C-alpha cells in the first residue's frame, strides 16, 4: 500500500508545465543526436568509452539506478515493488550493460541477454545471430518462441515488461514521476490497438524479408537491395524514432510507456498471450469508492477504475503488471494474481444479515 501522499499536480514538471516542455525538447534533441549523428562519438572517446553507444549505455544505466533509488524511497514499502525494482535495475546493470562490455573487452561479439526478438529484431536476422556461438543461437530462439509465450501464459507479460526489459525499466524508475500522464481516453485505446499490432505485423514481415534475403538474396540482387532498404528503414523508424526519440522523449508530456503501449512488438505478442493466460488484476467485489487513483497512475492508460466499479477483474492485453494500481488503491480493492480461476464464491455479495 502507498505510504503518504503524492503531490504530483503541484509540480510544474509533472503537470505538463513549461519546464516539462523544455525537458521534452531536450530529450528529443538528445535522442536525435545519439541516433542520427556522430555528435557523441567525440565525448565518448574522450571519456574512454569507445563509442557513442557505450556512452549511451552508461547514461541509460545511471538513469535507471538513480531512478530506482528515487522509486524505492517513494514506493519501496511494498515488497512487490521492492523486489521488482531491484530485479529490473539489476538485469539492466548486469545483462544489458556490464556483460556486453565484458564480452567486447574479451574480443567477442557483444550480446544482450535480456533482449529478444521481436523487440530486438536483429536477433532473428541470420547475418547477426549466426555470428554468435551455437548456445546463444539456441538461447535466442528458445527464448523468443518457447519460453516467452510459456512464461507469459503463467505470469503475464509483466515478467518481461516490468521485471526484465530495459524500456520498462527506465519507465518504472527514472520515468516514475511521469506515469500519470498517459492518455486514458477511449480514442487512445482504439489507436493503441491499431498501432501496436500494425508494428508487430511490420516486424514479422521485415524479419521474413531479411531472412529470405539471406537465403536467396545472392540470386536476386534487386530483391536484395529491397530487403536491405526494409531492414534499414525498420531500424531507423521503429528501432530509433519510435522506441528512442518518441518513447523516451515524450515522457514529460505523454507518460512513460508511449513505446511499450503503442508500438513495441514484444509487448504486442506478450499481450495476446496474457489475454488467454492466467494473469489478471482481481477486483474485490463492491469495495471500490471510485476515487480514481488506480486509473490516474496507470502508465498504460487503462481505466482500471471502470473495472473496479463494475466488479470485473482486469484482463487487458496492455497491462504490464507494474502493480501501481494496487499500490495506490486506498481501499485495497485490487490484487495482481496468476490463477486459473477466481475463488469459487466470487459472485456479487449476497444480501444476508448476521442474526444474533
Amino acid at each position, binding site marked *: 500500500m502507498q505510504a503518504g501522499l503524492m503531490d504530483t*499536480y503541484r509540480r510544474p514538471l509533472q503537470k505538463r508545465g513549461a519546464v516539462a516542455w523544455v525537458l521534452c525538447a531536450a530529450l528529443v534533441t538528445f535522442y536525435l543526436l545519439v541516433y542520427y549523428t556522430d555528435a557523441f562519438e567525440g565525448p565518448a572517446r574522450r571519456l574512454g568509452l569507445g563509442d557513442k553507444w557505450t556512452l549511451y549505455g552508461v547514461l541509460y544505466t545511471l538513469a535507471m539506478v538513480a531512478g530506482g533509488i528515487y522509486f524505492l524511497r517513494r514506493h519501496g514499502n511494498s515488497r512487490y515493488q521492492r*523486489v521488482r525494482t531491484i530485479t529490473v535495475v539489476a538485469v539492466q546493470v548486469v545483462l544489458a550493460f556490464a556483460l556486453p562490455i565484458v564480452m567486447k573487452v574479451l574480443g567477442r561479439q557483444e550480446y544482450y541477454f535480456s533482449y529478444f526478438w521481436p523487440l530486438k529484431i536483429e536477433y532473428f536476422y541470420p547475418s547477426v545471430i549466426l555470428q554468435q556461438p551455437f548456445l546463444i543461437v539456441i538461447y535466442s530462439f528458445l527464448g523468443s518462441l518457447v519460453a516467452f509465450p510459456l512464461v507469459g501464459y503463467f505470469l503475464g507479460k509483466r515478467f518481461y515488461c516490468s521485471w526484465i526489459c530495459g524500456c520498462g525499466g527506465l519507465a518504472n524508475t527514472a520515468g516514475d514521476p511521469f506515469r500519470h500522464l498517459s492518455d486514458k481516453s477511449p480514442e487512445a485505446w482504439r489507436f493503441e490497438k491499431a498501432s501496436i499490432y500494425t508494428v508487430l505485423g511490420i516486424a514479422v514481415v521485415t524479419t521474413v524479408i531479411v531472412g529470405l534475403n539471406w537465403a536467396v538474396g545472392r540470386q536476386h540482387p534487386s530483391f536484395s537491395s529491397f530487403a536491405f532498404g526494409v531492414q534499414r528503414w525498420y531500424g531507423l523508424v521503429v528501432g530509433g524514432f519510435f522506441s528512442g526519440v518518441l518513447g523516451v522523449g515524450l515522457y514529460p508530456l505523454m507518460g512513460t510507456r508511449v513505446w511499450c503501449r503503442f508500438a513495441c512488438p514484444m509487448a504486442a505478442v506478450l499481450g495476446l498471450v496474457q489475454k488467454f493466460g492466467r494473469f489478471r488484476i482481481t477486483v474485490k467485489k463492491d469495495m471500490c*469508492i471510485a*476515487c480514481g487513483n488506480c486509473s490516474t497512475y496507470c502508465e498504460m492508460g487503462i481505466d482500471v477504475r471502470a473495472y473496479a466499479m463494475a466488479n470485473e477483474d482486469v484482463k487487458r492485453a496492455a497491462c504490464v503488471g507494474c502493480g501501481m494500481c494496487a499500490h495506490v488503491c486506498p481501499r485495497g480493492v485490487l490484487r495482481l494474481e496468476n490463477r486459473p480461476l477466481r475463488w469459487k464464491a466470487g459472485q456479487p*455479495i449476497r*444480501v444476508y444479515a*448476521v442474526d444474533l
Partner: protein
Amino acid sequence: MHYVIVGNGVGGMEAALALRRQDGEARITLVSDEHDHFYSRTALMYVFAGQMRVRDTEPYDRGLYERLRFERVRERMAGLDPQGKSLRSEGAGTLGYDRLLLAVGSRARPAPWPGAAGSGLHYFVTLRDLEGLDREARPGLRAAVVGGGLIGVEVAEILLARGLKVTFVVRENWYFPLALDEREARMVAEHLRAHGVDVRLGVNVEEVRRGPEGALTGVRLGDAPRAPAPLAPDAAEVPCDLLVCAIGVVPNTGFLATSGLRLSKGGAIEVDEALRASAADVWAAGDCANVTWADGTRRPEQLWYTARDQGRVAAASMLGDGATYRRGTWYNSAKFFDLEYTTAGWVPVRLDWDNAPLDPGPDVNDWFQRSPGRFDSQRIVCKGERVVGFNMLGGRWNHERLLDWIDSRRTLRFVLDHLAEAQFDEELSPRWRRQPAAPST
C-alpha cells in the same frame, strides 16, 4: 415520463444510469449546483494533496451526459411542492417532474462552538470546501482539526502533508470508537503521532478564540465527559490559524422544511422499504434517506457503498419493479494515514457518545492480535463459538471471504486456521501468521 433527480453524487448518478438502462425514452434531469459532472467525493483529499485533479475523480468520460441524454440543471433547489409536482430553485425558477428522486446527500454539521463563525473556519465535504481550504492552507500555518471520524483523519493527513502543524482534537477517549476498540485506536493514535500529529483525546472544544479584528487565534479545550485524566492547564489553549470542523454530517434537507415531506428528527427523509418518501412520486436515496438498519433502528447510512446501492434500488422502485432496499451484512473500508482498514460483519461499538463503556451483550468475545513492532492487527468478534465480525487494520483482507465465513457460521478455530487465505495484500507480502501465544480476551 420525466424523472428528476436532485443530487449528482453517487446515489443520484447510479439511479440515473439504472433508469436509462431500463427506459431509453424517458426524460432524465439531474440537478446539482456543485459540479457539472459526477465526481467521487471520497477523493477530495487526493485533489487537495495534488495526487489527482478534479477531472481524475470523475469516473465517467465527460460525454456521458450527452450520450445518455441526461439533462442538467446547475442550480440549488429552494423548495418542493409535492402536490403540484414541482421544485423551486433559489433563482426562483420552477422545475416540474413526474417522478422525483431526492439524493441530496449531506452537508457538514455546523460548528456549534461559541465564536466559531467567521474567518479561518473550514469544512471538508464539498468542492467549495476543497477550494476554500486549498486557498488558505499554507505551509507553516497551525491547524486544529476537530472530530475523530474519517473526514477528520483525512484532513489531518493532507494538512500535515502540506507542511502545516496539525492538532487533532477528538471528543472520545479513543479515536473513532464507532468502529475501533481501544487497542486498535491506540495503535492508530500511535501511528498519527509518529507522523507528527498532536493527537488530543477526550477533549471538547469549549470556545473558538478570535483576535480584535475577528481573526482566528485558537481554540480553548475542556474535558469531555468521562475523560481519563483532567486536562493540564497549559494544554487547554491550542493556538491555530485554521480550524477544520469535521464532527459529522447532517442531511442536506433544509429546503424540504415546508414541503410537507415527513422528515426524521435529524432531518433525514423518512422512506419505506421501497425508498418511497411520504408524498406520492417522491423517492429518496443515500445520505439523506432515513432507512431501517439490521438492528431495527432507523438512521441514515452515510456511506459510499449504501448510497450506491440505494440509488440502484430507488431507480428500480421508480420504474415500478417492486424493488425493496434491504441492508446486507455490514462491511466497510477506510484508511488512516498509511493504515488500511477493513471491517465485515458485526463489530459492536464499545463506547457511547458520552464516553461511557457499552456492553456488547452476553457471550460476545474478541480474538485479537497485533504483530509486534508493526502497525498491523486483526480482531475477530465471536458470539459463543460462532464468528460474527472482523476488524482488520494495517493489512488488506478479502471481505468477500470474511463475509462468507460469517454467513456459513464458522467457528473461531476454523477461521484462524484459514485466515491467511483471506489475505489480499500485494503479492510477495509476508503470509499472515498467528502469533505464538496470542492473547485472547
